[in-house]
Each structure stands twice: as structure tokens, then as C-alpha cells.
């Protein structure tokens, strides 16, 4: 049977089990939107195309499925670029469909033409311009395959208007595409090496990253660490891959990592790094990073190995399959650790934890952002999916909300995109309507995609926004305080809307707390309401995120803020 391009698109999406599209219409995709009108496919109309991509991204991070967007050509397409780059840096599977002018006009500077495949080539895993109707179905199938296979990532598919209007036969059972799946190759020799290294190590440490979450390997990683009593630290993207309330957990490492995680990295003699890429925010100066340790690195992507940190034993492979092999190998060959050695190492770690715990100064007068997050954790019993914006709000969340489960901390790690949290929360809440979904936001970031409050209101997507309002671009201000002698150049944001009134104007609920004693009751109320709620917490304005490793320093060399006096 012959079908039109627009019909093939929707049928192909059904084949891929797509249950929602985040999108925004325009001239080049009018035909597709007309087909959507007749179809049962769910579509969420966002208020800005960047919001569509972040929403699809949040959906993908929380579900592990591929997120899908649909936008028009030209400005619709260029508006997706920040979202695509965000997903690309964090290896999130997306398929973004963009409209394009008819093939005959491409290259003519036609109305709303832009070379979006050219623009997104460096920030997608791959992209396609569909040149003929015969290519449409196979391209869509390939796009989904590429997005979710191996190291995942965003794929863009550009759809010229005339191609979508053309007709061809559609037979989903007979579409042949290349195989992109990476087959797992066991590496018994390397497992033997790991066995030897673990046997001779006195101070082993596991470092878990986003690859453990993407590879669905949290259970294996947790099992390995608990069985052999190996302490675990994680990158920002790894939060939730090991239970944040487990005694073996050391919290995040790196620039705003805990004192004890950074000390453990600097003193361990074996580092088992799983699904991490050793970003400079994590390592501090490379020279002294894990300087006393042999490093084993497991990653699916060879380009992540030896990129920043030179490792002793690279193992290229899927994190889940490789950790499973490792667990089996260690068990089969009766790996045992010396209880005395382990006790000494865990004792040392406990001593660091006791010396400089993750804490903050409660003065009773001002709302401390850390207290808001702790209270949120307490009230939700940690049973919530949290998105963040970027800046201090993001770092405090990483430090003070102890994530016990994978796919529950949703944040732009690699690109650090302000404006990510709200649309991402909408995508998450769409996927999990029965879960508490909270965007922990900053007053600067929230204004970057504030228009998405309308999306939440329209579709009754009841996200909660915990706004840590310091009236500053706080993280930048912190750097100005520490490194520019408090010259606060263009970081004061006191000129802002009244967020409570703004929420009300959007038809959602706005609440405000200005005193510490109001925090718990406002959170309780906000969380209990069956509507989107924005809670404006007027926090201590010049609170800083500590510990902090100064840029270019060793990660064992941390500023601890006011606690420096104590130590």
C-alpha cells in the first residue's frame, strides 16, 4: 500500500514505540502536523523549541528510552541547537525531526531555510537529510538505532517538505539497515589483571559515572562494591548509580566534591573507574589526580580512554556486561580481600568523613539553600526525581540530596545548560505522572525557559519548582568573590519578576518562604498540591558552595569556606 511521507513518519514512530513527541509547528512541518491532527500520537506543544529538546531529554534520562522532538525549519531548527548539544555532551538518546524547505530550494536561501545538518554536525552523534521518499523509513529506523546503540546520543533527521508529501510503499518488516549494536567481547585476560590488581591493592576505590546509568549497570556496580567492601565515589552524572545513603558512598568528587571523596581519590592505590570520562571539573590538575593509584577504566567508547587521564588497564565494553564478567571472574577464582587492610582503609575514610563532613552553617536568620534541599529530601523520603538548573543550585543538589536510585538525578553535566531543569522536569513528569518530580532551580536559570510554565499548566503536568532565589547569578558571583576581589560585574539579578505573581499569571500556584521556619511548611504544601507549583525560597544571598577546589589545583587541595578556621 502506498503511503505519504507524513503517514510513514507517524507509522515509523509507532514501530519505535514512541509514545510522545515534544514539538512546535511551522510552515515546513504543516503537513506533518495535519497528519498528527488525525492520529492518536501524543504531542506536547512546548513554548520554545529549546524547551522541546530539554523535555525530550528529561524524558529520555528518566526512562532510558529515546526522546523525540519535532520542529519546523530555519529558526525552529536553530532553536534546538542548545538542547541537542546538551544531550550530546551527556550521551542522551534523542531523535530530533526538523522540517526543511523542498529539496529543489535547498541551497537557494529560501524562506526559513537553514543548513541544520551542517550546523549540528559537531553536536549530534549523527544526522541525516532525507533526500527521497524511499529513504524515509530506513532513515528513521537507522536514526533510532544510532541514538540508542553503543554510547547513546542525539540524532537529527531533516525532512524536506516535498519528500514528506511524496508517496511510496511502506513495509516495516522489510527495512534493512546497518547493525549498530556493539557486541560484547569478554576479556578474560583483563579480568585476570583486575583480579591481580585487586589482590595487591590495600586501598581500592570505585568511581562511578554516567556510563553506569546509561548502561543500566547500577545493580552490578552496587553488588561489586558491597560484596568486597570497596568505597564508592561518583561524578555528577553518576549520582544515583550507587545508593547515596549507603555507608560505602563518599559522595561526589571533583571541584565541589566532598572532602572525603577527594581525599580518597588522592590516597587510593587502585581506582576502578566505570563509565566516566575524567572531565576537568572532576580531576583538577591531571598531574596529581589519583597519583598513588593504578587505574582501571571501563568504558564503551574507546575515545573516552586515555583522553584526559592515562590509565593502567583500559577495558572497552558495555558497563553492565563487563561488570558482570568481573563479578563472575572474582567469584569463580575466590577473590578475597584482607580484612585488616580493608578495615584500615575504611577506617581512614571514616576519619576523613568525621573530620570534614558535608555541612553548612545554619544561622537561624536566613534560609540556607542546603537546608531547603535537606528538607525536600526528608519530606520526599528521597523518593522523587530531581532535575536541576545550572550553578550553585545544581551543586547543592548534588551534595545534599542523597540519590539512591539511577535515573533520578537529571541535570546538564557536560554542557552546563542554564534553562534545562524546568523543561526537563516536564518531560520526566510526563513519563512518570505518579512520581514527585522537582526542578531545583536558580533565579537566573529559571528565567531562561520560564515560558514552559505554560506547557506545564496547559497539560496539567504537575511539576514542582523549588527556586533557590539568591538574586544573583550565584555561581558566577562566587567566582567573582573568590577570584576577582568581590567585583560583582553583572551578576546581580535582584531586578526580577515577582515569581509568585508570575506563577499565578501562568495559571499555576506560587508560594514563598522568606524565613527558615517557613521552609518545611511551604515545601509540604507545595508538594501536596495537585497542580504545578513554584516555590520561591529567598535564600541567603551570598552563600557559597564548599568544598571548592580552585581551578588548576589538585583535588586534595580544597577550600572549605568558614570551616577552614576550624581545621
Amino acid at each position, binding site marked *: 500500500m502506498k503511503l505519504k511521507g507524513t503517514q510513514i513518519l507517524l507509522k515509523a514512530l509507532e514501530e519505535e514505540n514512541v509514545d510522545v513527541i515534544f514539538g512546535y509547528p511551522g510552515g515546513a512541518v504543516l503537513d506533518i502536523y495535519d497528519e498528527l491532527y488525525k492520529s492518536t500520537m501524543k504531542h506536547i506543544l512546548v513554548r520554545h523549541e529549546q524547551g522541546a529538546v530539554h523535555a525530550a531529554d528529561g524524558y529520555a534520562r528518566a526512562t532510558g528510552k529515546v526522546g523525540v522532538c519535532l520542529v519546523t525549519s530555519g529558526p525552529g531548527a536553530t532553536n534546538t541547537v542548545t538542547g541537542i548539544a546538551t544531550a550530546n555532551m551527556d550521551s542522551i538518546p534523542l531523535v530530533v525531526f526538523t522540517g526543511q524547505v523542498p529539496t529543489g530550494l535547498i541551497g537557494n536561501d529560501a524562506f526559513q531555510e537553514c543548513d541544520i*545538518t*551542517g550546523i549540528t*554536525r*559537531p553536536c549530534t*552523534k*549523527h544526522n541525516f*537529510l532525507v533526500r527521497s521518499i524511499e529513504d524515509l523509513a530506513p532513515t528513521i529506523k537507522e536514526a533510532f538505532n*544510532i541514538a540508542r546503540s553503543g*554510547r547513546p546520543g542525539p540524532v537529527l533527521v531533516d525532512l524536506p517538505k516535498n519528500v514528506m508529501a511524496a508517496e511510496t510503499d511502506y513495509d516495516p518488516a522489510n527495512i534493512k539497515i546497518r547493525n*549498530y549494536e556493539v557486541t560484547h567481547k569478554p576479556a578474560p585476560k583483563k579480568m585476570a589483571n583486575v583480579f591481580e590488581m585487586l589482590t595487591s591493592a590495600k586501598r581500592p576505590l570505585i568511581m562511578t559515572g554516567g556510563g553506569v546509568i546509561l548502561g543500566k549497570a547500577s545493580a552490578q556496580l552496587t553488588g561489586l562494591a558491597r560484596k568486597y567492601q570497596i568505597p564508592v565515589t561518583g561524578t555528577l552524572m553518576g549520582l544515583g548509580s550507587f545508593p547515596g545513603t549507603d555507608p560505602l558512598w563518599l559522595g561526589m568528587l571533583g571541584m565541589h566534591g566532598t572532602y572525603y571523596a577527594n581525599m580518597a581519590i588522592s590516597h587510593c592505590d587502585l581506582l576502578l573507574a566505570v563509565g566516566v570520562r575524567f572531565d576537568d571539573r572532576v580531576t583538577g590538575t591531571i598531574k596529581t589526580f589519583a597519583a598513588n593509584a593504578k587505574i582501571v577504566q571501563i568504558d564503551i*567508547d*574507546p*575515545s573516552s*580512554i*586515555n*583522553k584526559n587521564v592515562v590509565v593502567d588497564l583500559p577495558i572497552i565494553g558495555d558497563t553492565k556486561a563487563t561488570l558482570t564478567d568481573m563479578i563472575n571472574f572474582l567469584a569463580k577464582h575466590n577473590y578475597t580481600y584482607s580484612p585488616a587492610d580493608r578495615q584500615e582503609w575504611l577506617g581512614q575514610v571514616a576519619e576523613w568523613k568525621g573530620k570534614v563532613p558535608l555541612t553548612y552553617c545554619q544561622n537561624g536568620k536566613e534560609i540556607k539553600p542546603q537546608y531547603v534541599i535537606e528538607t525536600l529530601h526528608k519530606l520526599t523520603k528521597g523518593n522523587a526525581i530531581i532535575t536541576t538548573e545550572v550553578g550553585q543550585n545544581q551543586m547543592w543538589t548534588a551534595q545534599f540530596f542523597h540519590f539512591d536510585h539511577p535515573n533520578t538525578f537529571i541535570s546538564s553535566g557536560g554542557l552546563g545548560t542554564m534553562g534545562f531543569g524546568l523543561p526537563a522536569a516536564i518531560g520526566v513528569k510526563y513519563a512518570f505522572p505518579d512520581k514527585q518530580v522537582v526542578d531545583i532551580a536558580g533565579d537566573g536559570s529559571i528565567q531562561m525557559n520560564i515560558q514552559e510554565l505554560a506547557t506545564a499548566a496547559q497539560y496539567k503536568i504537575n511539576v514542582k519548582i523549588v527556586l533557590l532565589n539568591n538574586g544573583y547569578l550565584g555561581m558566577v558571583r562566587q567566582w567573582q568573590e573568590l577570584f576577582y576581589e568581590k567585583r560583582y560585574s553583572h551578576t546581580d539579578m535582584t531586578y526580577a519578576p515577582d515569581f509568585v505573581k508570575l506563577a499565578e499569571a501562568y495559571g499555576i500556584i506560587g508560594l514563598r518562604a522568606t524565613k527558615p521556619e517557613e521552609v518545611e511548611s511551604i515545601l509540604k504544601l507545595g508538594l501536596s498540591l495537585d497542580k504545578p507549583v513554584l516555590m520561591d525560597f529567598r535564600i541567603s544571598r551570598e552563600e557559597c558552595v564548599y568544598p571548592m577546589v580552585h581551578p588548576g589545583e589538585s583535588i586534595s587541595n580544597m577550600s572549605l569556606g568558614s570551616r577552614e578556621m576550624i581545621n
Partner: protein
Amino acid sequence: MEKKEHILSILVHNKPDVLARIAGTLGGKGYNIESLSVNTTTQYEISKIVMTTVGSQETVTRIENQLQRLVDVIAVDDLTNVESIHRELILVRLNLTADKKEQIKKAVDTNKWKVLVSADTYMILEITGDHSQIDFALVRLEPLGIADITRTGIIALNLEN
């Protein structure tokens, strides 16, 4: 680490923008392409790209890994670390002016250069060789007055599989 020239042989799917992807992958990460040669293989849908770049072994391994990540790249080989044969080709036009005519004819004979076109007023030569042979030929051609020249990128083949 020691920097040297590396010759990469890259098999790719012959897609419209595969060269742009490869060039972008290198350029975008700050690596330079010194020489480039592209054509289809015995199968039209598969092309081979031979590319040279200068860097330490560490840098070049990084480049190889980045290239391997591209969906349309099938295989990347560094021919510098295996036994391989390299060739470049130049086409040169020499103008047969009255004062140079005899000198040019003599040089063509002694060097056994291949004459592709011989006209009254000019001559076009084809010279192949490895990088240093071509450089050497250029030294000899220089005094004869090169009117125009085209030089290909390096192509290379490993001796054994």
C-alpha cells in the same frame, strides 16, 4: 612526546557529507590535515580516504578514536606503524621559452620524467614518487621555471594485510 607525520587510511561509507564529517571532526578538535586523498574503492558505496596529520602517537591515537566514533567510518589504520608504500603525483607545466628550451629538454631526459603533453610552447610532465622524491624533483624543476603545478595528497597501501 615526539611529533611526526602519520598517514591514516580510512574506509568510509560513501555518503554525501562524510568528508565534511571527517574534516570537521579534526578541525573542530584543533587538529590539522596536512594532505588528503579520497576516492571510491572497488565498491562504489565504500570510499577510502588517505590523510596525513602531524602529531605525537598519543594525539594520533586520539584522532583515530574520534574518527572511529563517526557512524560512517568503517575502519581507521595508521600506516605509519606498519610497512607501507607511499606515493604522490604532480602535474607540472613548463613553458618552453627560448632561453630555457634546451635546458628543459635535457633535464627531462636525464631525470626520465614522463611527458604527458608536448607542444611548441609548453610541456606537461607527470612525476610520481614518495614525499621526498617529489620534493627532490621540485628542487630540480625550480630553475626550469614552473608555470603551473598540481600536487596530489599522499596515497598509501600497506605491504601485507
